[in-house]
């Protein structure tokens, strides 16, 4: 069978974490803090819009770029929220979640041997998708700099072959985000070296301590940025699979070509529901954001009390505490915690080797669950003192 499977795919990591994931999935009555999606159900108004569209018989393809009314809604949303102007005809594309969009943009811009910078720890798809597109992922270790990319780090890694950077903030898995001043410095370096910014801001609406800054709003950044966002996190719509991309029309046109041959269009039901989310979903986003924020504060205090040092993240719904003082590796810690106390977390190494010594805890879980998990973790840690 080996010679049937393409070499590119053979060398792709099934992510060493797979076995651990399978272990979690096979176990009953686990309290999981390992989930990368909201614990809220999509607000009813949005679900109802999906149902209504089915009743009305909207069951066909849509334009490759996506329903015009959804693209228009996105253009208005970005205008209101960030003062950004994108043309719904040429500069916006609806994708199957942000994941598809990232794949599209990398395939659109990469020539064989081009390098893509990826700050790490990072979301898992950026590297493998870069490789599939024929590019070379260059991982930037951010663990010494509070999990943030800095101009200095960037300068160190950029060379003539560097085509772009996948910047994700708030970051999955660390929850770290950037203020405008920090982003401006990063932008300057990118413009200087003509490195395209692929900005994955899917957690942007879940920012707590300051206003989220969209990368294309930075000086002269818009033409050098492909902006990604989606409905999954902010509107609790992960299973609907709707994301969107905004950027220079040449790049969007290129991405649309691949999209039309591979996907054709996003499910019309999902697009109808997403359009409703933009119309009426704002207050639900705010309610959920407040709830997440309270859990973030709570968990941060509690984890530090347990002796797991944890900086307060500014966004998303993740905490990334350090577990080095237990003497266990991230994987051992996670496996033992699962086996002994039935609490699931994700080992930091799932997000890159420099996630070693950390675990990702998701607080997208009810406060009762979080409390019970803390009790079990306390017991687990005390045994090891």
């Amino acid at each position, binding site marked *: 069978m080996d010679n049937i499977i393409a070499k590119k795919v053979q060398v792709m990591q099934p992510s060493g974490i797979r076995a651990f994931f399978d272990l979690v999935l096979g176990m009953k009555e*686990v309290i999981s803090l*390992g989930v990368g999606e909201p614990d809220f159900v999509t607000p009813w108004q949005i679900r109802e819009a999906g149902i209504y569209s089915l009743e009305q018989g909207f069951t066909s393809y849509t334009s490759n770029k996506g329903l015009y009314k959804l693209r228009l809604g996105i253009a208005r949303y970005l205008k209101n929220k960030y003062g950004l102007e994108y043309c719904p005809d040429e500069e916006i594309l609806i994708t199957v979640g942000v994941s598809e969009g990232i794949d599209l943009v990398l395939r659109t811009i990469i020539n064989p041997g081009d390098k893509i910078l990826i700050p790490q720890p990072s979301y898992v798809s950026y590297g493998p998708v870069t490789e599939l597109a024929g590019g070379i992922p260059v991982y930037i270790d951010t663990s010494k700099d509070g999990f943030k990319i800095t101009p200095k780090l960037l300068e160190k890694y950029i060379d003539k072959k560097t085509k772009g950077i996948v910047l994700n903030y708030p970051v999955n898995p660390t929850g770290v985000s950037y203020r405008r001043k920090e982003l401006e410095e990063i932008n300057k370096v990118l413009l200087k070296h003509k490195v395209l910014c692929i900005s994955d801001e899917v957690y942007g609406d879940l920012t707590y301590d300051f206003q989220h800054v969209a990368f294309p709003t930075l000086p002269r950044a818009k033409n050098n940025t492909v902006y990604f966002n989606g409905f999954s996190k902010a509107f609790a719509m992960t299973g609907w699979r709707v994301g969107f991309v905004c950027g220079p029309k040449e790049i969007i046109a290129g991405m649309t070509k691949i999209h039309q041959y591979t996907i054709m269009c996003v499910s019309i039901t999902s697009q109808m529901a997403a359009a409703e989310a933009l119309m009426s979903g704002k207050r639900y986003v705010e309610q959920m954001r407040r709830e997440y924020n309270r859990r973030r504060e709570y968990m941060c*205090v509690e984890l530090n009390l347990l002796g797991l040092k944890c900086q307060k993240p500014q966004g998303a719904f993740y905490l990334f505490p350090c577990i080095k003082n237990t003497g266990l590796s991230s994987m051992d810690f996670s496996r033992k915690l699962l086996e002994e106390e039935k609490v699931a977390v994700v080992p930091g190494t799932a997000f890159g080797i420099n996630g070693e010594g950390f675990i990702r805890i998701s607080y997208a879980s009810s406060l009762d669950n979080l409390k019970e998990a803390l009790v079990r973790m306390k017991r687990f840690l005390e045994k090891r003192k």
Partner: protein
Amino acid sequence: MDEILEILEKDGRATVEDIAKMLHKKPDEVKKAIKKYEKEGAILKYKAVINKDLIKDTESEVRALIEVNIVPQKDLGFEKIAERIYSFPEVTSCYLISGTYDLLVVVEGRNLNTVSNFVAEKLSCLENVRGTATHFLLKKYKEDGVILKHKSDENKRIAISY
């Protein structure tokens, strides 16, 4: 609304310590705020929301929504007569509303008879009550924002994902 109230409205058992942690405040500060709300009457009481359908050992309860037409009193309007009505312990809620009638009164009783007797003997014969229409409640689906259905423990999310 103050986030302290937002939390307590959802979970009346949330402790001062937990609220303080969630809002990044000192416990004393939260305690003081809650005391103040209680004193002012902004927080009236703490109670459990019970789904009585699931309690088999208690006698079943009958509930009725009663539309009441009233002749307002000079100088007092509806206030005085409303007070006379809502003071009956059988009345669990009482609202002044706009539209074709004036008061919406919710009455609870042990059975159909007790409720009908209340309407016939207490409510209808009040001097300013011009007429009533009684609607017996057949099934409760949702009350005070809570859906009265036994929650399934089924977890719809997969237990671990990136």
